[in-house]
C-alpha cells in the first residue's frame, strides 16, 4: 500500500468568511461560498478552476449537494465526510488522495455556520442516545469536563493549570484583530466565571460564534505557479476511537496519539521539528491532552507544561496563535480555522502574532467528544 505522498499537494489559498456575528438570514452555505470566493482571490484562481468540493456543516444534511447547486458545479468531485470539528483535517487528506489520483485538480474545502445567530440548539441538534441522553449531560461540555476530572485525579492536574490554557489563548487573541474577545483574561477571572459543568467555568469552554471559510488545494506542481508561497501537506493521520464519551476507551489518552504518530511518520518528522501548533481547543483540557498525546510533553505532565505562560505569546512553544476556539472564534466546528491560521503563519502573514521563521506547523483537529482525531503537518518549501 503506497498511501499518501509527503508534499504531493499544497494549500494555495485560505480565507475566513464573515465571522463573529454575521448578518441576519445569512446561511451556512452563504458563508461557505463567501469563504470560497475569498480563498480563490487569495491565490488568483477563479470558480471555474474548481473541480473538487469538500465541505461539512451541521446546518444541512446534504451540504455537498447544496454547494454544487449554489456554485453551479455539477461535475465537481465531492466529499462531505462529517465527523465533527476535525472533518476538515480529514478533508485535507482526502483531497490530497483525490489530487494524486487525478480525480480533481483544484479542490476547495469549505465550512459555514450561523450558530450564534440561529442558536446552538437549532444549528446542531443533538441526536438521542438511549444510553446517555436520559442522564442529561450538558454536551459537549460535560464529556470534556469528565475527561478533565479524570486527568486531575490521575495526574494531579490543577484547576489553575487548566485556566492557564484559556489565559494563553486570550493573550494570543489580543494580538489578532479578527478575534472575538478583546479584553485581557486572568487565571482568577477563569476560576470566578459562571460554572458550566465541573470543573469547567464558561471560560474553559469555546466561544459560540458564527463563521466560516475555505482553503484551496492543488497538486504540488501546480501550486508552484500560483501567486503566494505554497504550504505543502507533509503528513496526515486520523483515528476515530468512539462517538459517545461513555465509549471512549481511556479518558486521559486520546486518539491523537495514533493520528499524530501517522502524521509524523508520513512527514518523516517529530514533535521537535514543529515551529507552531494549532490544536483544537474546544475546552481547556484539550490543549493539555493534545500536547501530551502529540509528544510535546510526557503523559500527565501537560498541566505543569502549560503553566507559567509556556504556550502564550512570550512563551517557548507557540500554540493556537490566532487565539483559538477559546478566544478567537468557534462556530460549531472549528477545524478549518486551524488550517487557515497555520497557512498564514507559514506565509508570514500574521503581523503582531507572527511566529518568526515558522517553516513547519502541526494542525490537530478534534471532533465529537474527543472522538475523531485528525492531524495534519504542513510546511513551506524550506521544509520539503
Amino acid at each position: 500500500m503506497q498511501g499518501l505522498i509527503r508534499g504531493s499537494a499544497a494549500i494555495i489559498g485560505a480565507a475566513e468568511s464573515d465571522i463573529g456575528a454575521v448578518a441576519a438570514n445569512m446561511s451556512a452555505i452563504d458563508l461557505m461560498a463567501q469563504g470560497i470566493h475569498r480563498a480563490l482571490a487569495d491565490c488568483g484562481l477563479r470558480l471555474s478552476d474548481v473541480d473538487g468540493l469538500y465541505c461539512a456543516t451541521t446546518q444541512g444534511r446534504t451540504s455537498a449537494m447544496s454547494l454544487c447547486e449554489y456554485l453551479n458545479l455539477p461535475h465537481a468531485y465531492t466529499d462531505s465526510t462529517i465527523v465533527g470539528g476535525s472533518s476538515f483535517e480529514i478533508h485535507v487528506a482526502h483531497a490530497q488522495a483525490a489530487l494524486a489520483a487525478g480525480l480533481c485538480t483544484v479542490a476547495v474545502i469549505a465550512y459555514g455556520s450561523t450558530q450564534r445567530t440561529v442558536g446552538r440548539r437549532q444549528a446542531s441538534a443533538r441526536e438521542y442516545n438511549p444510553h446517555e441522553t436520559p442522564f442529561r449531560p450538558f454536551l459537549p461540555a460535560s464529556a470534556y469536563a469528565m475527561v478533565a476530572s479524570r486527568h486531575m485525579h490521575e495526574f494531579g492536574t490543577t484547576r489553575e493549570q487548566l485556566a492557564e490554557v484559556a489565559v494563553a489563548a486570550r493573550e494570543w487573541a489580543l494580538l489578532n484583530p479578527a478575534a472575538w474577545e478583546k479584553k485581557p483574561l486572568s487565571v482568577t477571572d477563569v476560576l470566578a466565571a459562571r460554572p458550566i459543568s465541573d470543573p469547567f467555568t464558561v471560560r474553559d469552554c469555546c466561544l459560540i460564534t458564527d463563521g466560516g471559510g475555505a482553503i484551496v488545494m492543488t497538486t504540488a506542481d501546480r501550486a508552484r505557479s500560483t501567486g503566494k508561497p505554497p504550504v505543502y501537506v507533509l503528513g496526515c493521520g486520523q483515528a476515530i476511537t468512539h462517538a459517545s464519551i461513555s465509549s471512549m476507551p481511556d479518558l486521559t489518552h486520546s486518539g491523537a496519539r495514533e493520528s499524530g504518530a501517522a502524521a509524523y511518520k508520513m512527514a518523516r518528522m517529530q514533535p521537535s521539528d514543529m515551529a507552531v501548533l494549532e490544536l483544537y481547543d474546544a475546552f481547556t483540557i484539550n490543549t493539555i491532552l493534545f500536547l501530551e498525546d502529540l509528544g510535546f510533553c510526557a503523559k500527565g505532565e501537560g498541566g505543569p507544561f502549560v503553566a507559567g505562560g509556556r504556550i502564550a505569546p512570550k512563551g517557548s512553544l507557540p500554540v493556537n496563535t490566532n487565539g483559538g476556539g477559546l478566544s478567537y472564534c468557534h462556530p460549531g466546528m472549528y477545524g478549518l480555522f486551524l488550517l487557515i491560521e497555520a497557512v498564514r503563519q507559514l506565509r508570514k502573514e500574521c503581523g503582531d502574532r507572527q511566529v518568526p521563521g515558522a517553516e513547519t506547523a502541526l494542525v490537530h483537529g478534534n471532533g465529537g467528544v474527543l472522538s475523531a482525531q485528525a492531524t495534519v503537518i504542513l510546511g513551506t518549501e524550506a521544509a520539503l
Partner: protein
Amino acid sequence: MPNATSSPLGTYLDHLEKDELAYQFSPEANKAVFYPRVICPYTGSDRLEWRISKGLGTVYATTVVHAQQGETYNVALVDVDEGFRMMSRVEDIAPTAVHIGMRVKFRVHRPGGEEPPMPVFAPAEGA
C-alpha cells in the same frame, strides 16, 4: 434468514423493567460488551450472550452540571465490576460529593410517563 424478533436496546430495556442491569458477553473475545449490539466489536461475531450484572461498580469520572435553570445534578461514568463502563448518575448524596473511586450500587429509576426506566447508582461504601 428471518428478521430478528428483538433488538439489543429492546432486550436491555426489558431487563431494566425487571430491575436487572443486563449486558452482553462475547465468549470468543472473553469480554463484556456494552452498550448492547448485534455483533461483537472485538470479533465481528454475532454470538453474544446476555448476562445480568450484580450491580456493583466504581465511579470512573464525574461532573456536576450547572443548568441555567433548576438545580445542579451529577453525571458520572461508572465502571461496572463485570468489566464494562456506562453513563449514569449517583443519587442520594450531593452531586459535588460524588468522587472518582467511589463504590456504587445499581438501582432502577422510573421517570414515569413515556420515559423508559433508567439505570442509576447510589453510594455503596464497603461493597
